[in-house]
């Protein structure tokens, strides 16, 4: 037992028997997470995949319960860490004075508002579930590249937000409407039109006056460093083609009827300058469902289900600057127009589509693209990865960042710390028809090998330094006090303001700040 008996009982009275556990087995299991070893090592700790063991794991079933638990945590000065589906080290406590909230009982789609083009969801609704329901209305959602198994609420309120369909569905942070949010002091805040005392509804997330979405999150979320999100309204987008979805067979070798109006283009642009021109050219036409630069190796991976099946794709891997574009349409006319635009661009830029000529993917690829499930292949084909970098601004800076990272990665490949992707492993996508871009460098390493973990951590540190010194934008993982204090002085001293927000809204430092920022002297 990690909680005093009386305190345990108080928590149990809120959630009911069986919905809180502080036994050794459960708490130890919850101390594990993917990639925890890297972050441990970076923090000067042993590179093991375990965080501090939580005092207990609690499963609230409603906002009221969440609020009561948070208030109790304030009373006993116990910290909280929230998990929606709980994938990744940012779900882990940074101290041993912490309770994990597993939000799995809050799993309802509150509504799909067809007329106002949004859905309201709880934390444990997965992207897959929500998408299936919205398809009934010829609509779809934005999903982060992590895939359909994760929580759109967590992505929208607390995490990141890049996805493969970002050219036409944007970024999670920009798709947020109204929000229900239990602040670290236990107060429930309702953003935007949901905060109306009468006639409250979810259609708008800003105001009255300044938008509190500005303290809720930035390019990255606060990763449970500033309270608990219990409901969110997210925008819906038109489903890109026919919603008929016929899958046959068994995992992982499914078959799929490719929708009539869906076409894949994989083109080698030869070099980064031309890649930038082509990407901007495609995006200005506002035609793409997906428009991503992936290194040759990564393109091989998105078409593969195993190491063996990677091998027959060597010709793809040899491409110098591959661009993957998918166009989709709802009507024959639209499809014909979009194909004509692509033909025009291919001709203009003198590049070729290799699909159907050099390589033809299995139909299941198209189903996975529609389900935003391509990130999965990073695991299937390579066994595991973590992303470094994560700048978001122009295509030019993303490509410069990609290029400058290659020699650095190669250094660590030579040391056999990370897997050999020729140093090129990058994913870069357009957003909102090319209004901005982001890149990250997925990097494969061996989680079970200490030297590989250490090498990966050192590579990430050096990559961060590179971004800082060469002004290549802030990476994803500028989070946690150490990183904020490193980057803040070069970035308008933002860390001072961020810290003030933390101190103001979390006076008792209840929300675990391991992946956010700690208050002064804590």
């Amino acid at each position: 037992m990690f909680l005093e008996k009386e305190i345990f009982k108080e928590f149990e009275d809120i959630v009911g028997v069986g919905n809180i556990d502080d036994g050794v087995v459960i708490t130890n299991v919850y101390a594990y997470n993917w990639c925890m070893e890297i972050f441990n090592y970076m923090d000067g700790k042993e590179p093991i995949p375990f965080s501090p063991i939580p005092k207990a794991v609690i499963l609230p079933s409603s906002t009221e319960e969440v609020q009561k638990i948070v208030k109790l945590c304030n009373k006993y000065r116990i910290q909280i860490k929230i998990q929606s589906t709980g994938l990744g080290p940012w779900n882990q406590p940074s101290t041993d004075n912490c309770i994990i909230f597993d939000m799995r009982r809050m799993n309802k789609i509150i509504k799909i508002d067809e007329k106002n083009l949004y859905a309201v969801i709880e934390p444990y609704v997965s992207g897959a579930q929500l998408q299936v329901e919205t398809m009934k209305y010829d609509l779809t959602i934005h999903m982060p590249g992590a895939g359909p198994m994760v929580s759109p609420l967590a992505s929208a309120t607390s995490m990141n937000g890049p996805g493969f369909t970002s050219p036409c569905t944007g970024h999670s942070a920009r798709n947020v409407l109204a929000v229900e949010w239990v602040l670290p002091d236990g107060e429930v805040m309702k953003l935007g039109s949901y905060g109306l005392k009468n006639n409250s509804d979810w259609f708008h997330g800003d105001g009255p006056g300044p938008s509190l979405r500005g303290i809720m999150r930035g390019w990255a979320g606060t990763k449970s460093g500033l309270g608990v999100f219990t409901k969110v309204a997210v925008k819906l987008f038109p489903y890109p083609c026919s919603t008929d979805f016929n899958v046959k067979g068994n995992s992982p070798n499914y078959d799929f009827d490719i929708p009539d109006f869906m076409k894949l283009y994989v083109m080698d642009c030869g070099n980064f300058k031309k890649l930038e021109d082509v990407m901007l050219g495609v995006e200005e036409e506002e035609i793409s469902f997906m428009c991503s630069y992936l290194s040759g190796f990564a393109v091989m991976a998105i078409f593969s289900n195993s190491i063996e099946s990677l091998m027959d794709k060597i010709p793809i891997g040899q491409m110098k600057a591959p661009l993957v574009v998918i166009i989709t349409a709802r009507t024959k006319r639209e499809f014909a127009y979009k194909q004509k635009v692509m033909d025009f661009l291919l001709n203009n830029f003198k590049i070729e589509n290799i699909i159907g000529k050099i390589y033809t993917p299995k139909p299941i690829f198209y189903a996975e693209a529609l389900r935003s499930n391509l990130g999965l292949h990073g695991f299937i084909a390579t066994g595991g990865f973590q992303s470094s970098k994560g700048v978001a601004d122009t295509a030019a800076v993303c490509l410069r960042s990609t290029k400058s990272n290659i020699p650095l990665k190669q250094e660590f490949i030579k040391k056999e710390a990370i897997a050999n992707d020729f140093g090129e492993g990058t994913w870069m996508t357009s957003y909102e028809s090319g209004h901005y871009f982001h890149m990250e460098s997925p990097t494969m390493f061996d989680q079970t090998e200490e030297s590989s973990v250490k090498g990966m951590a050192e590579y990430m540190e050096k990559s961060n330094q590179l971004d800082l010194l060469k002004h290549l934008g802030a990476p994803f993982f500028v989070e946690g006090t150490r990183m904020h204090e490193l980057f803040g002085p070069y970035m308008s001293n933002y860390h001072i303001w961020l810290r003030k927000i933390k101190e103001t809204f979390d006076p008792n430092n209840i929300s675990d700040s391991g992946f956010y920022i700690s208050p002064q002297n804590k």
Partner: protein
Amino acid sequence: MSETKIYLELVKIYGSKNISNDPNVLEKYSEDLSFFPKKEPKYVIWPRNRNQIQKTIKLANSLNFSIIPVSSSSGPRHHGDTIPRNNKTIILNLSKLKKIINIDRKNRVVMIEPGVSFGELIPQLYKRGLKILTPLHPRASKSVLTAALEREPITIPRYMWDSSDPLLCTEVFFGNGELFRTGAAAGPGSIKQQKKSGQAQVNPMGPTQFSPFRIIQGAQGSIGVVTWATLKLEILPSIQKVYHFQSKNIEELLDFQYELLKYRLCDELFILNNLNLACLIREDPSEILTLTNSLAKWNLIFVISGRDKLASDKIAYLEGDILDIIKEKKLKISNNKTETNEIDILNFLNQADINPWRLRLNGGYQDIFFISNYEKISELITLVEKQITKNLGIYIQPINQGTSYHCEFNIYYNPNNKEETLDVKEKFLRISIDLMNSGAFFNRPYGLWAKDVYERHEDSTQKALKKVKKIFDPNNVLNPGVLCFDD
């Protein structure tokens, strides 16, 4: 602290030429078109650079005076948000900061100072084949940056990817005088260094785990003074085809509009009542009335566009798909061919307004605007129409990818007619409150609305906003008294 001391310190920063306490000048800043009570500022100052702005804010913190930033060079102000509320207020007039710092065709972004107006920016962008996303026929002298800061709705909902668009990054002095850059502009590195690495300040989110631009936006100058901003641009179409559908029944048009929105089939898209459409097209009051009478009550306007070699292919596909929707939904509406022509409509969509359209009919107006969901629009229109039976303009603008609607009611009247003015004043507040009580979301709570709006909102919102204000403007020097912030 004595006034003389404040004046002398300001002179040290500005020289006496850029400060005024001329009663005629002060008078201009003491009132606007709204019914907000009159009060004169102590001085008006015109900074020429950001050092002066920073020094002024720091001075306000140490000598305890208030600052209200304004940006538009001329033309009427509206909503009571720039009228002083205390006896120690200085107007910081940013209209002389007029640089279009950078027009970037490749990255579709412009960086501008606060004094740049729509009248100045639109032609410059046109020359480069670009366009800025504008509110409906914006006043030529209106500051482009302020329109974005105030979350004024733009006319192309599919380009409004977030409610904050077209605003991207900003440079801002917070209330304690500290300089900050929001979004990707924060760094690492100076703007010059960022440019060298290929950046263009197009990502508004961040830095890192917060997005302070969202707090500055909608704050009516009470959180920070913005000295430049980057704004999203779109490429100028080479063909624009205008559609104008009329109906007696707004529901029919709302239905059709929904389909266009859902599938992102068009660019500009909104509904106007006959009077507002006439005000946008004609200038002379009698011509406005004649046109009003010849139009159906409700007018759905939308534009489809294409550019370059495949422009007509795009138009053909969109037209075909739109016609299919009309057939499939069995809509009994058709494109208007008589009362208005395409050029009239494109004029007000593509150009800034030299003769403000809301002032054309009677020389005065009050506007009531809020955000609604789809279902409530008709009900809220009925509520207003019951109380105002003539000279009422209505404008319904879908925003934010069709997830909500800006609803605007323009009450046109003659401000020189005392009786009419009194009547409008009484109705303005009464109707606004009726609307608030019926689910209208006043997300930009100006002047006289603010108190009533916040009363109808969860207390936690006010509490949180006050905390935010305290963080960024600890001594309450920036526009005190607006929103839910105490004077």
